[in-house]
């Protein structure tokens, strides 16, 4: 029995992915464009999806476009950018009601398809340049979006850790772009990049819902005409840690933010990834994990203390919010817990608990159409073809020895602490 059967059809210039399921009241279309993450292009890529979703040739203003979405029973359209490993990914998502739950039987899927392809291929542009005032508005908003990271101290400290830790690597850049590079973008330079991305990016198109595969394929074949391409395959750059980097930054904050980065030298594409995932789960991924128990429950130092993986980059990242003066105690507890993990100092019960919640987490995620797409997309980024069933099976059969073995590769790289103004020289 398969828990989600993904059908993949290679087409000219893109791959069509299709999952038929009756559990949603909506249909979901997700369009993903992937290219190497580079300092030179990241800001263009951060801006482009926002310009495209503002309007189109058919709907030249945002008001017209959004009114049409309202007419389609509040179809939602949104864009997002992310970095995964050495790649940058632009995502366009449309969710549209399945008409069988409406008293009005208008065929919504095809209309949604037309709107999405209109936004992607028929933008509001003329003479090889996007509409001028759209560009100006979206540049202004992008600058504000980049700037707003500073105001959210949890995001800010996470982002600063990566910046310090991955200095000189493409990964140091935020997926949302670099503020200083926004101004120089013009309506024609962005248009030129748009053409390049359409021709060269690796494109994956997911359609999820209670719809017929032949119908989806017919729509796709009719409406999508793309040039052939050979996308670049990159693997994560692995850097050996010479010495642990300690960074302390002072700002006017009430709570200190402690973020610690480890290099695992294991990514989603590696067979050791299953063991790493469980390592992280026992260490800090959940409310039964060592970090939660020892930093929060036993020492009362924090409200949150957890860790997560950057699966395609091979990083393990710890985050916690603590009193400024508890810095040393918190760091030493976290180090002790990491050492305990490496020594295999965890019980069979912790392991089986973690396997159960990891499994639960994956099954829950795929109950949400967008979550399902994110999980399936790991295969595209990693260049693997592991089915969900296989994935769950491998997680289940991973042994304690394999987890300890994965732990041997983990190295602490950077400790970043955002703290209050006390003690500032």
């Amino acid at each position, binding site marked *: 029995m398969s828990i989600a059967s993904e059908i993949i059809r290679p087409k000219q210039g893109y791959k069509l992915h299709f999952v038929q399921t009756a559990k949603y009241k909506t249909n979901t279309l997700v369009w993903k464009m992937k290219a190497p993450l580079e300092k030179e292009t990241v800001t263009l890529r951060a801006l482009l999806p926002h310009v495209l979703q503002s309007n189109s040739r058919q709907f030249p203003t945002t008001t017209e476009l959004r009114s049409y979405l309202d007419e389609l029973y509040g179809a939602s359209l949104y864009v997002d950018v992310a970095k995964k490993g050495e790649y940058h990914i632009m995502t366009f998502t449309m969710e549209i009601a399945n008409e069988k739950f409406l008293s009005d039987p208008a065929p919504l899927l095809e209309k949604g398809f037309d709107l999405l392809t209109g936004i992607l291929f028929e933008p509001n542009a003329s003479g090889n340049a996007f509409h001028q005032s759209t560009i100006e508005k979206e540049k202004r*908003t992008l600058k504000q979006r980049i700037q707003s990271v500073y105001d*959210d101290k949890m995001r800010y400290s996470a982002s600063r850790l990566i910046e310090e830790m991955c200095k000189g690597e493409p990964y140091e850049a935020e997926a949302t772009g670099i503020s200083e590079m926004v101004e120089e973008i013009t309506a024609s330079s962005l248009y030129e990049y748009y053409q390049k991305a359409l021709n060269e990016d690796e494109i994956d198109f997911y359609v999820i819902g209670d719809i017929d595969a032949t119908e989806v394929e017919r729509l796709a074949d009719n409406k999508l005409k793309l040039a052939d391409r050979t996308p670049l395959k990159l693997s994560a750059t692995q850097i050996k840690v010479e010495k642990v980097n300690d960074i302390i930054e002072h700002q006017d904050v009430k709570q200190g933010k402690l973020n610690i980065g480890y290099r695992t030298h294991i990514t989603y594409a590696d067979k050791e990834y299953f063991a790493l995932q469980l390592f992280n789960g026992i260490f800090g991924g959940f409310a039964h994990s060592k970090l939660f128990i020892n930093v929060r429950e036993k020492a*009362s130092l924090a409200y949150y203390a957890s860790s997560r993986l950057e699966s395609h980059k091979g990083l393990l990242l710890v985050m916690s919010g603590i009193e400024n003066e508890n810095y040393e105690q918190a760091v030493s507890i976290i180090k002790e817990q990491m050492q305990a993990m490496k020594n295999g100092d965890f019980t069979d019960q912790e392991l089986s608990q973690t396997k159960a919640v990891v499994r639960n987490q994956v099954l829950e995620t795929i109950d949400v159409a967008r979550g399902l797409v994110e999980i399936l997309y790991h295969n595209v980024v990693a260049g693997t073809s592991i089915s969900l069933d296989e994935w769950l099976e491998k997680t289940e059969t991973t042994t304690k020895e394999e987890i300890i073995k994965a732990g041997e590769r983990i190295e602490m790289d950077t400790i970043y602490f955002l703290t209050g103004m006390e003690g500032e020289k």
Partner: protein
Amino acid sequence: MEKILFEQLQEELFYEKMANGLDVYILPKQGFNKSYATFTTKYGSIDNHFNPPGKDSTVKVPDGIAHFLEHKLFEKEDGDVFQQFSKQGASANAFTSFTRTSYLFSSTSDFEKNLKTLIDFVQEPYFTEKTVEKEKGIIGQEIKMYEDNPDWRLYFGCIENMYYNHPVKIDIAGTVESIADITKDMLYQCYETFYHPSNMLIFIVGPVDTEETMTFIRQNQESKPFVDLPEIKRHFENEPEEVAEKKRILEMNVQSSKVMVGIKAAKTDLQGIELLKYELAANVLLDILFSKSSNHFDELYSEGLIDQTFSYDYTQEYGFGFAMIGGDTRQPDTLTDKLTAILLNSKSGEGVTEATLNRTKKKKIGSFLRALNSPEYIANQFTRYSFNEMNLFDVVTTLENLTLDDICSVADSLIKESRLTVFQVVPKK
């Protein structure tokens, strides 16, 4: 067990009131992996002044105690309930709002075992002085996390502006000082007042066997000796109609300014279908004025006064309610003036036409369908609606029946200069 059918939505809802007064609802969802269950008491941060069971005199309890109790309920003599849930492959959580405290889990296996864990841990409090003291450090950090969060400060600052007396203006987690006074005896007192089954509701969504689950809950409840409880007496001071403060500005360590314009609700004694209609109409009005398809949005966005953080919402419960409109901006005062002007002009129905109303209704119906994909949304909203004597599944019909007159009459009753307020967060000089 009663079965309620929603034909257009293709959903079935099962309901039973247990002998001890507990309401139980089950919405089967085949095809989903996940089952989701919430166990909620009609007790939140605003319930800080009440008569303990059987007492003639009232007590006032420290700010933040409902939330503190929520944290402490997870701890038992033999350890932490989180551990139990994760052994059974479930992930558990809880939250406290103004009017509710909710305990929940989601799982993709061992549903009944997890359900038993949920019901039993909520119905078996275990508070000691030692664990209460330990929690003060943890919640203290939670409070500080929010103090550094400008969006939370903006939201709460705006509510504080609106209210003179109503406890909705008190931060749900309290303050480091107020939680210092909390003792185990106070926790027991609040527990005994508000955690009786007749003040609570269980909602389950997922691929579950309805009959079996209902029987299990019935037997579980029958095995526990609950004594009937007289009606809970909560006390609230009178609240003037106008806002307490017209404008306040908070300087913080931020780079972007933020503005929130609030409207204090007018008719806060509504319940049931009246409230449902009023709340939906107020939200439709805000959509007409401020959604991305509105002229106002386009104008404000083009002038660089708002960005993608711009949002708006109307919410109302018994005794309080408010609209909030705002987001990040480069010009807080200009945005404040424009938003205020748009609101005041809409009092006479400006921009509210048959065409915009119909489009907005379609959009709202579509978003409601989208929300029904989410077990979390269904369980949490259904509970909130039920505590206000409304039915979540009446939303589509109520929306379809809204008329221009309904929208205009909400605009007329809600919007008034004296009920408007603004809160701004600006960078420190």
